[in-house]
């Protein structure tokens, strides 16, 4: 035995345990990994920004006395009946099919109690959600599952979905396990087969067609409903500009942290941009067109706290949307269910096989035994509480910055902890006036 020290075993960064495990899984199954949720990478995010707060050069508002408003109007450009929400935190589109009926009901209950809207998804409008949502946004998707003029008119707004952050340029797949009789009926398809959701709309291509499509929807609904256009975080400057050109009342911009019910992991992790990089480009497009605040901007993808809400709004958003965070508030990935997650080969916090329909929390399933465990009244109350907390948090920060409305937050209130976040968000590195790419060094 040599007296020389041994080189300790060294794992490869490139071929990490995770990477090797995926190679072995692929080799064993011959199929890519499909999962739910958004990107799990460490991405530049709102965590990399800080608020400066007030001192001598700026004065704050009194925390528990002076008003800091949170309401937002959506759809003021063309719609006869724009939506007025008490808080700027909306619930993102999640389908019945991907989610259980009771989960959709809970979203409606919680959102309505907190004074905000919910959004349908790629499965049509359910009575659970319409009945419990004071403001309901009806998604107009490529698949057109469940689409009909009566539901268009029952909606409070219509969201034309062009893309989503988890998979810009991708369609979807609802696997057969989740296609119950009711889901199949709503989608006009046989029970138990995989249901593909197309990535392109069947009857329009490009911004000129989209403008005419929006004209048609406005005519069908007598110009009453706000029309949103949802885009994934791909080329937000141009996509926002084209959405405005096509006649959107509201642009919904979803970064790559935004979730999906089921998509290839390789797609989720490698296509699209983080929301931090998307917002300033979209805001610039609106400003260049003279439409900032006239066409409202809703951003989503990794919004978790009131601080995230405040930061997104300081960068120029009018409102945010939450999806994954709302599911967590309802009880998704709760450590209380750890023993059941273990049986599924995962652990609380990491469970993302939503497409398999075995969710022990009863949220992402169509199994009556599983969704029967979920209490929509309790779920709604939890969501309301969470939305209220986020709102209070955002107000706390806004007052500290001297703002009497969340919309008055501005990029000047922010600094960045990292060069990447500074460059993406367009705010200076903390302690400097340097914005990489814009000078000031």
């Amino acid at each position: 035995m040599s007296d020389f020290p041994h080189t300790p075993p060294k794992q490869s960064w490139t071929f990490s345990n995770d990477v090797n495990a995926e190679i072995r899984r692929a080799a064993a199954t011959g199929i890519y990994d499909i999962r739910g949720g958004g990107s799990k990478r460490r991405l530049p995010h709102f965590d990399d920004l800080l608020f400066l707060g007030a001192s001598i050069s700026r004065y704050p508002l009194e925390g528990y006395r002076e008003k800091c408003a949170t309401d937002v109007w959506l759809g003021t450009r063309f719609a006869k009946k724009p939506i007025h929400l008490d808080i700027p935190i909306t619930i993102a589109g999640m389908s019945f099919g991907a989610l259980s009926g009771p989960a959709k009901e809970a979203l409606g209950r919680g959102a309505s109690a907190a004074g905000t809207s919910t959004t349908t998804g790629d499965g049509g409008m359910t009575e659970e959600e319409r009945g419990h949502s004071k403001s309901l946004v009806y998604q107009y998707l490529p698949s057109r599952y469940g689409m009909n003029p009566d539901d268009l008119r029952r909606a409070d707004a219509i969201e034309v979905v062009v893309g989503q952050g988890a998979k810009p340029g991708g369609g979807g797949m609802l696997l057969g396990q989740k296609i119950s009789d009711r889901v199949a009926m709503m989608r006009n398809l046989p029970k138990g087969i995989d249901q593909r959701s197309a990535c392109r709309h069947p009857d329009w291509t490009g911004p000129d067609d989209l403008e005419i499509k929006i004209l048609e929807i406005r005519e069908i609904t007598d110009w009453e409903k706000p029309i949103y256009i949802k885009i994934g975080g791909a080329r937000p400057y141009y996509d926002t500009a084209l959405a405005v050109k096509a006649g959107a009342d509201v642009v919904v911009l979803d970064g790559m942290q935004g979730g999906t019910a089921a998509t290839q992991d390789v797609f989720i992790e490698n296509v699209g941009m983080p929301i931090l990089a998307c917002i300033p480009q979209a805001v610039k497009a609106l400003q260049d067109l003279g439409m900032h605040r006239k066409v409202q901007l809703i951003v989503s993808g990794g919004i978790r706290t009131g601080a995230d809400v405040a930061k997104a709004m300081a960068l120029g958003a009018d409102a945010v949307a939450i999806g994954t965070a709302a599911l967590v508030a309802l009880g998704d990935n709760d450590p209380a269910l750890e023993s059941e997650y273990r049986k599924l080969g995962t652990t609380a916090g990491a469970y993302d096989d939503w497409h398999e329909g075995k969710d022990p929390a009863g949220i992402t399933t169509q199994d009556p035994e599983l969704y029967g465990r979920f209490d929509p009244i309790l779920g709604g109350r939890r969501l309301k509480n969470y939305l209220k907390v986020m709102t209070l948090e955002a107000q706390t920060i806004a007052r500290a910055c001297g703002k009497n409305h969340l919309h008055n937050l501005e990029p000047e209130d922010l600094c960045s902890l990292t060069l990447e976040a500074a460059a993406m968000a367009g705010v200076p590195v903390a302690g400097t006036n340097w914005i990489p790419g814009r000078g000031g060094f």
Partner: protein
Amino acid sequence: MQTFDLEAQGLRALNSALHNVKGQSNETAWEVVNPKGSHAIAVGVDAPVDITVRGSTGYYCAGMNKQATIRVKGSAGPGVAENMMSGTVIIDGDASQYAGATGRGGLLVIKGNASSRCGISMKGINIVVHGNIGHMSAFMAQSGNLVVLGDAGEALGDSLYEAGLFVRGSVKSLGADCIEKEMRPEHIALLADLLKQGEADHLAKPSEFKRYGSARKLYTFNIDNASSY
């Protein structure tokens, strides 16, 4: 007969008037003149009225129609009768792309030819085309029937679900998972009825058609079928 001059009175006034028919008017026959290729003519109608458009239309004429019978005395632009729920739409001339897209019910008759993607993603509508149809027609078609008296272009019925396709002429190629199927007596009867409804029973006999449908091999993802995607 109520005559509506689209050029003079405008699209909003037309659709608003048609929407107001529901339960509020005895007007059951409408004539639209000077359409001049305008988009979104007679969309979202929900009443058993007869509407005749004298001229050609732009995009999405008769979109989401319910109950109404809408006749276009000319040709129709893209997406005619898209997402139709019920009623009848008859085009005397040709139809552009996506005719009857995602339609959930009712009958669409095209007396000329239809362009590409006719019946794309159809969900219960019946479509009868007297002439030919273009490529990628009935893509991802879920239910309903597409009857073509002429020829079909490339990739007919690609990724088809449960819609029934009947073509009298040639088919340039079938799309993934679309196969020719046996024409049984119930299909002959169905076809005879559709030809009659589509004002085509004097033009063709059911026995002259071939039936196409889904092989159902792509219904559940299987890696061995990856080359089909």
